[in-house]
């Protein structure tokens, strides 16, 4: 029973990532997890952090009522599951923009006066799970320094609970994968995510 916020990002319905989303939602709902699904493309989420919004960087979330739903979701959940394709070694702009805009002052972090490192505020979040696909191999991603993985497992995780665990579930080399590889991934993905949430 985990309150799970699922952030799904892919522009094409029917893509492999959308199949992953369906498999995970189905499995988690069947096993009594409370799932809130956010489909950023379907919602037409605007990932661009504008100059006006940037000027509000140090203000409370009430100055950005258009993001109230995201703030509520972030404060509600105990776990976040990200489902997205890895592009150029990292998060798609849509997902990066969601983080840029919604992990805001007083919600995700606070900056004490005179300090230069921010302090965590999302202590309700105890699990982060990334479910992603890579066109290239694990080796190539390692050469690139795994930027996407580290944004999730380090940069945003430090704004969560001290004991927050980050899990990485990736299908590498999808461009050269066979149908059997992908079906195998889909068959077990729900269970793997559920295990990561335990």
């Amino acid at each position: 029973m985990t309150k799970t916020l699922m952030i799904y990002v892919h522009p094409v319905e029917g893509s492999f990532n959308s199949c992953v989303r369906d498999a995970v939602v189905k499995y988690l709902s069947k096993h009594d997890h409370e799932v809130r699904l956010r489909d950023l493309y379907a919602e037409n989420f605007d990932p661009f952090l504008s100059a006006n919004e940037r000027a509000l960087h140090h203000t409370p979330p009430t100055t950005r009522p258009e993001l109230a739903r995201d703030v509520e979701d972030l404060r509600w959940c105990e776990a976040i599951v990200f489902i997205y394709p890895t592009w150029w070694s990292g998060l798609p702009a849509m997902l990066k923009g969601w983080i840029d805009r919604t992990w805001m002052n007083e919600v995700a972090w606070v900056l004490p006066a005179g300090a230069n490192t921010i302090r965590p505020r999302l202590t309700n979040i105890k699990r982060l799970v990334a479910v992603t696909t890579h066109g290239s191999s694990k080796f190539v991603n390692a050469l690139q320094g795994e930027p996407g993985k580290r944004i999730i497992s380090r940069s945003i995780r430090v704004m969560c609970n001290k004991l927050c665990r980050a899990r990485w579930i990736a299908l590498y080399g999808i461009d050269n994968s066979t149908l059997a590889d992908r079906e195998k991934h889909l068959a077990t993905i729900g269970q793997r995510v559920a295990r990561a949430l335990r």
Partner: protein
Amino acid sequence: MNVVVVLGHPSADSYCAAIFERIILALESQSAHSVTAIRLADEKFVTAMSTAERVAYETATPLISDETKRHAEVLLQADALIFVYPTWWSGLPAQLKGWLERVFVLGVAFRFNDNGKIRPNLQNVRHIIGVSTYGSPWRYVKLINDNGRRTLTRAIRMSTGLRTRTMWRGIYALDTCSQQQREEFIADTAEKIVKRLEKSSR
């Protein structure tokens, strides 16, 4: 030398934009360079790859909008790429990441060889230079991993070839930097970039 300078900060009155403008000024004063300035926010460059673009991405003609076509042409002529952006959540701002996703496509950043393997297509780019502002101190940036830097100097560099030289300039703990430190960083950065590009255009 054709130099393309990209600004990833949304506000024109930001410190990032000040660095950007100074670099443009410094390079334009050199007759050897032809400078293309890209201000993504001013251009209202669309951040996220659209559904139609994602479908086209898999085809031989992935560039389907005028803005991406225009930027692709500039890229294919570039000898040096300079990125100026704020590091947010240890990575690139979404709009700059979106620029990579939408413009660095098949026929621009990479191509397939006869065996269907991906090969770099931006071998004209000999320099990748990144300039970034960080809210966090240097130590913290290293601990978390400088993901924006890695995306540009490693992932993008795989599309430009191993002859490409990279250079990085970062100003850390920006919130506690004095005005003097900021100004020194701007002057120093512009000078170093000019020097780097000067050497190789000879």
